[in-house]
């Protein structure tokens, strides 16, 4: 099998110890959560940290709780399996439970974490390969090379955000809590809380704004509207394991009269950052779910998504087909959300 590069493994028991390790080792250190993405990436020599800091023993990072204000707070180290089967998540954020349930396969979900999925590296068929393979290629823009093989002549890396939970959390208006090293002389924890939308940047090389030495500790999902509904749709070749070829998360807020009062759709596996499909509320708000008018509005929204979402050859397979599936999956996922159903997936 492929060998891992040599590294020191640190297993701090507290967040403070972990932060101290990052402060000490700087960019030589990388955090490892479930390891389901980092380990293969290290075997492919995409990352060769000298120090790997495991967050697994830090109990404070695990767990799902509902605050008195109805907010859902999920520790970054909570496994995807736990997120998917949590009744609190299923009730308050069904789109997140559904997205988590479709990540990788059952075994990987017992290792992979919500924080790890949010912080997932972007993926590309020209990048997620062995060192020998990338050497034979002559590398690419994202690592060690100067050429993009997705957009020939392109100067900007378009490796795809491939994390299913990211668009789900974006439709929920989630915030991310990061903790950084405590500056000298301070005693208060150095916390930074940002809207998940503010995390992303449109750069496939690194698609997140983060501060040096900080750790994602928790994901907070505000209480949703009374008539909140959500669903996730995922296109992939196989019924399990595969990363998304296209993913879409839907939020529908539905009033007591079944009329839509708010809506959001986020798409992933297109370019470097997950993105909201724009101008959909203009079509959906005011429509009664299940009505013919709602169905027509859903059709128009699917067209908007088709215009705004352009899959690229960053993922293996047929990009034209993926684009063709954008309106289909958006439409089906909207209907699933409206019906309180989902996820939309071929098996």
């Amino acid at each position, binding site marked *: 099998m492929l060998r891992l590069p040599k590294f020191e493994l640190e297993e701090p028991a507290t967040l403070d110890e972990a932060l101290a390790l990052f402060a000490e080792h700087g960019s030589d250190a990388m955090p490892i959560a479930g390891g389901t993405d980092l380990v293969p990436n290290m075997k492919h020599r995409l990352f060769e940290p000298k120090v790997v800091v495991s967050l697994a023993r830090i109990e404070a990072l695990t767990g799902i709780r509902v605050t008195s204000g109805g907010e859902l707070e999920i520790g970054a180290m909570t496994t995807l399996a736990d997120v998917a089967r949590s009744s609190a998540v299923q009730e308050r954020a069904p789109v997140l439970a559904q997205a988590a349930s479709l990540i990788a396969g059952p075994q990987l979900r017992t290792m992979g974490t919500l924080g790890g999925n949010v912080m997932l590296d972007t993926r590309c*068929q020209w990048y997620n390969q062995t060192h020998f393979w990338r050497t034979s290629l002559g590398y690419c823009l994202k690592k060690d090379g100067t050429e993009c093989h997705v957009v020939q002549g392109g100067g900007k890396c378009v490796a795809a955000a491939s994390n299913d939970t990211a668009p789900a959390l974006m439709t929920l208006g989630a915030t991310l809590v990061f903790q950084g090293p405590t500056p000298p002389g301070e005693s208060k924890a150095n916390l930074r809380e940002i809207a998940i939308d503010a995390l992303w940047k449109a750069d496939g090389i690194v698609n997140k704004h983060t501060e040096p030495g900080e750790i994602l500790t928790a994901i907070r999902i505000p209480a949703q509207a009374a008539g909140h509904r959500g669903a996730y749709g995922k296109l992939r070749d196989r019924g399990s394991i595969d990363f998304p070829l296209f993913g879409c998360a839907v939020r529908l807020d539905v009033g007591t009269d079944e009329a839509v009062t708010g809506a959001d759709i986020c798409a992933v596996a297109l370019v470097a950052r997950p993105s909201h499909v724009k101008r959909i509320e203009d079509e959906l708000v005011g429509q009664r779910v299940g009505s013919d008018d709602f169905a027509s509005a859903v059709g128009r929204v699917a067209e908007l998504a088709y215009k705004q979402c352009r899959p690229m050859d960053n993922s293996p397979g047929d990009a034209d087909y993926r684009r063709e599936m954008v309106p289909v999956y958006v439409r089906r996922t909207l209907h*699933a959300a409206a019906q309180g159903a989902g996820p939309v997936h071929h098996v």
Partner: protein
Amino acid sequence: MAARDIHGPAPPWGDEFQVIGKPHRKIDGLAKATGHAIYADDIQLAGMLHAKTLRSPHAHALIRSIDTSQAEALPGVHAAITGKDMPVRYGVIPWTPDENALAVDKVRFIGDEVAAVAAIDEDTANAALELIEVDYEPLHAYLDPVEALERSDPLIHDTKKQTNVSKHVHLDFGEVDAGLEAADVVVEDDYSFHGSTHAPIEPHCAVAQFGADGLLTLWSSTQITHYVHRALSSVLEYPAQKIRVVQPCLGGAFGGKSDPFSLEFCVAKLAMKTGRPVKMLWTREEVFYAHRGRHPMRLHYKTGARRDGRITAIDARILIDGGSYSSFGLVTTYYAGQLLTGPYDFPAYRFDSTRVFTNKPPCGPKRGHGSVQPRFAFEVQLDEVAEKIGMDPIEIRRKNFQGSNTETVNGQRVTSNGFDQCLDKVETASDWKTRRGKLPYGQGLGVAGSMYISGTNYPVYPNKMPQAGIQLKVDRSGLVTVFTGGNDIGQGSNSVVAYLVAEELGLAVEHVRVVAADTDLCPVDLGAYSSRVTFMVGNAAIDAARKLRAQVVEAVAAAWEVAPQRVRLIGGHAIDLEDADRGIELREAFHLAEEKFDTLGSTGSYNTPTLGGDYRGGTIGASPAYSFTAHVVEAHVDTETGRITARKVWCAHDCGRALNPMLVAGQIEGSVYMGIAEALLEEHDVNRFGLHAGPSLLDYRMPLSIDTPEIEAFVVESIDPEGPYGAKEAGEGPLHSSIPALANAIHDAVGIRLRELPFTPGKVLRALREKQAPAGTESRAAERV
């Protein structure tokens, strides 16, 4: 003279089998399930070094020079070797030796082996590879077989005719043109079959040890110990008597471990050079480069038929993309034509098949070697013929059924043939008559049939010695040990040998021990390929056991002073058929025999009768018995996403006598899985740079359990006159017709003919658009909403 005895299909004792026909466990099943089985990579020897291979980053290039000095200077490195250390070329087919253990002067695909290093551990060996300097001169790389056919500068191999053609076969039987003239209906079309690979769960691994006595021992995950033995001797230029090749427990092969491979030569050479044991375990990526999988083929078929459904002639033209080396390609090129001539009878047939070299991982034999691709094209075409003349697709197959005890148009002898019963089984089980053509839009049923060989009488190197040999040894404890050169690659061939010997000797299966695939201990067998093992090794086992049995019976009869006819070996005992009180344990019977005949043992062997057409290549594909298969597939098509679901597959397979019906069912299920897998998901190809498109189990999309259709397996037992108790093959045949049956089911579901594999959703949507599906009938049943 090798034994060609026909043992007959009858039970050896009385009217009933004791062991045969019952669902026994595999003899190594528990060891595998509990992790006790020893695979090649489990072997750890004192002082063992680890080796790694440097591979070419170029698809086609000359090697100007290689400098290994820095690698050799790295602490922990014991040796580095290059092509110069082993310049003798080899090839599994002795007529086409075009491979080197390590490239000598040029590389022919990205991943081709260039140098190898042995070091104290894998990391050191990998670090050493980085220090080897190779000066390449890149050449034009052929990625398109048509270009390789038309262009000969540069040459991939220095072929005799100075072209990039690997093999060309043209054979003509009967009056093809007249047959097509006389047809009421002629269907002519192009078909395309893509590449796929075996992806066994165990990557290739080899361990070599070189003793002070000059004995070289190689443990390797091979499915052909004997050919590896021969190739090692030749390439290492070392006497075969001083080489021992052993196949440990093997984690799947499917044809992908049938060639001698670079790692086997490299560990052997490195062990000889360093005096230390050396192991090499390939990564999954390296297994993809080693490949030897399904050949991509472009097929042009023309079939004529009369209005009553009878086929009048078939004309085929096939272009085969062989990749960078010959491997079994000579045979592939023949099989692509030779194995189409059943289960249907037709009076005229012509095929022209050409295999070309390209700069891609080399193709070879994958389950259903050479004949899965033509079978797809033809069975889809036959469906279209049926449609044109308005005949039920099962009926047209019945109409053309060749029957048993017949000869094919290309001169192959067909003995037992239960294809008609296979059709009956799948027709009834699928409720064909009430459902086919009548299911809602988006759902359909399709049928296809096929035939495959139970070994072939063409040994890869010409000789008249037996194809299979067995030795039996009897222990005074009552244990019988069977020595077989056969390779159990997970299909259960060692178990089959144990069942047969147990049946003949009246022993419990657990009192038969099997020692297999060790060239020092076991008589020669040609290995696990072409579905030959059950038939050939099985016959040899019966031959040997029957000789031993005669001695035991004679000794017991003499001791009891009765006629030998009265002695029966059954249930671990020797009994007197005419005196119920007289009986002894078999162990005691063996003692009597040993007293009478001295040390007990016997040998048995099998060789095929003279078979095949009297023309060049006429023996290739000539088999002592053919298996037959029929599939019905139920396909659901989501017309909005183009996604095809093989909802259910019914497969009936005529394997002659099912020696262990549970193992046969397992082979049927595995074959169906593999066939549907390559039809819908798997694709082995290179990208525009000649780089493998995704050499990992993430990007090479093998179906998971959730993607696997429900499979119903039916065993049809036509009882072959020459097979061991009437058995034929079961390991490869049941793959063939699954793919065209799926294609035909898609046609029944939505009216499109898919002629280009794999059937990706994008292709389905394009075909649907071309056909303009009736409005308002979208089916979305497959989506879970």
